[in-house]
């Protein structure tokens, strides 16, 4: 009982989201009986969700600091393209094992470079994150186009495909990567020194700087972290499609912002949990896969996702209003101070 109360007070948002998720899962099962609860469909969802989830985690860190990373899908594809070139090199043809490791490393290096680019301009030059990443989005897309000449790169060694399509002990490998990323993100954001700084910077950057924290270095790391998450998503994507192309996953950019906000992260920064984002990603994935099975078109899914986003935020606003009204009851002074 006590545990439940603690859960309700500290994680009310995650609880609401969990209820919505369960509701959506039940609803989809009713809509397409015999099709939704099949092993095949569940495995498909489990394989599809990670790339979106990884990108959403990367987006979340940026939003936590009050920024945004509009270049995130282009980072994912650019690092995917870097990996693709390594995979197609003579070295990998001769030594597949070390070659794949090298591909992963090269995609991480590209990710770190893109993260440093974004981070330097956001943290050290002081340009609004939205503008920097709007520019770097075009820049990274251009570099990707230049490398691939607009086409797709295909023909990876078969063992690399396991990263996106394989199973380990019956669990899809991408899901395992995603789970590992969730755990790492949780510990880094909610249980580490750096994580506390990230939240503080998001709440009030000036106050954080004046309390002796190097907010610039914190922000720089945020954008590197964001890019690394995106590159993991990119690796899963190129392995799942067995090719790399500039415009893969471009729809994930706005969707990931939606998922992060749906998950309870404040767009102004400072608040939000990894768990909330993860549940929101699951809600969006289950909704779109479920509606797909039901026979809805992609456009219906867009409409419904948009409605869920606005709806949940409206509920959240009403809740906050009710709570503050409760707090302010009889406290005229507090109300005046608030206006």
């Amino acid at each position: 009982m006590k545990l439940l109360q603690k859960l309700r007070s500290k994680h009310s948002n995650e609880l609401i989201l969990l209820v919505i998720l369960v509701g959506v899962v039940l609803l989809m099962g009713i809509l397409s009986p015999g099709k939704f609860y099949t092993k095949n469909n569940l495995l498909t969802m489990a394989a599809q969700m990670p790339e979106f989830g990884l990108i959403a985690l990367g987006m979340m860190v940026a939003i936590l600091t009050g920024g945004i990373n509009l270049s995130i899908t282009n980072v994912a594809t650019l690092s995917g393209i870097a990996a693709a070139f390594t995979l197609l090199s003579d070295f990998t043809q001769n030594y597949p094992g070390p070659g794949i490791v090298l591909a992963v490393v090269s995609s991480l290096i590209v990710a770190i470079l893109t993260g440093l680019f974004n981070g330097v301009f956001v943290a050290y030059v002081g340009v609004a994150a939205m503008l920097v990443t709007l520019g770097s989005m075009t820049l990274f897309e251009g570099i990707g186009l230049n490398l691939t000449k607009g086409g797709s790169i295909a023909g990876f060694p078969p063992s690399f495909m396991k990263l996106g399509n394989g199973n380990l002990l019956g669990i899809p490998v991408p899901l395992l990567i995603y789970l590992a990323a969730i755990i790492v993100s949780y510990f880094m954001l909610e249980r580490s020194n750096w994580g506390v700084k990230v939240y503080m910077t998001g709440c009030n950057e000036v106050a954080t700087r004046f309390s002796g924290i190097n907010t610039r270095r914190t922000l720089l790391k945020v954008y590197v972290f964001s890019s690394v998450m995106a590159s993991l998503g990119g690796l899963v994507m190129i392995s799942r499609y067995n090719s790399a192309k500039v415009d893969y996953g471009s729809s994930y950019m706005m969707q990931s912002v939606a998922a992060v906000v749906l998950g309870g992260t404040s767009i102004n920064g400072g608040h939000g949990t990894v768990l909330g984002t993860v549940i929101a990603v699951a809600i969006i994935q289950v909704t779109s896969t479920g509606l797909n099975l039901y026979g809805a078109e992609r456009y219906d899914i867009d409409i419904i996702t948009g409605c869920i986003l606005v709806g949940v935020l409206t509920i959240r606003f009403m809740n906050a209003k009710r709570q503050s009204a409760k707090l302010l009851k009889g406290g005229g002074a507090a109300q005046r101070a608030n206006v």
Partner: protein
Amino acid sequence: MSRILKKKEFGIFLVILVLSSILTMINRVFIRPDNLIDVAKGNVVPGIMALGMLPVLISGGIDLSVSSTIALSSVIAGKIMVNYGGNLFVVLLVSLGVGAAVGALNGIIIAKLKIPPIVATLGTMSIILGFVMKYTNGDWITNLPEWFKSFGVIKVAGLPIQVLILVLAGAVTWFALNYTLTGRGIYAVGGSPSSALRVGYNVDRIQVFIYTFCGAMAGLAGVIHTSIVQQVDPNTFNGMELKVIISVVIGGASTMGGIGTVLGTFLGVALMAILNNGLVLAKVPTFWQKIVMGLIIVFAVSFDVINRKREKAKLERVDVEE
């Protein structure tokens, strides 16, 4: 004179001047009047949308749904023209009305439900685009009536009618921002919403007005776009919102709110237009164009921030010395 030199718009103007000279040296075609008129005509649509986005950014908000709004109003206006005929007045009225309605919806969600603008308009963007694509299946609307097609090619004193409409829209926006109470209120809200509330501005009403205006401008841009390309393609507007926002920001408006002018916005749109046209004329390979574009965006916005920081540092020094 020194006042003009100090203005932020002057910096952008200088960049445009330098860039134009370089482009002219590379390719003489650039400076030819017919090329310049073509560039102007081709950028009337982002120009009008930028005029709508300007008050939104000044107020400290953002509107990501403009690309969906322009698609919606073009499709509805196009369908009405093809199925019922009508005349130019009806088309303009419907298009502006649809845009304004979408904008008002955004404004109400943002003002009354206090959902942050970026999230609210992200939601309406996907809802509206979903409806447009569901309704049209992504198909083009062609065979528009002759009277509309002939409207699209009208020229006044050698200038396409669309360019004149852009100038007119700019004049209206300029007047509204500088000489009306609501316009001054927009700057006040952008500077500090709570102060604007205290001096007696109705912040909610101003916010609804801003987004309605932005939507109506997107609706107008829809008619203009249809009159230029003579057909409606619902897919063509994807990603346009980001281009519009970047033009306005390059023109000196701040995403933090409170700052921005019509002249600057025009210069920002012109800079982006010249870049696009110039990179083609300078025979920069297609694959390099995006790289150049991205770098210029990043450096343009950084330049502005660095400049502002330097000014501020100078001001602080003066304060100390006094």
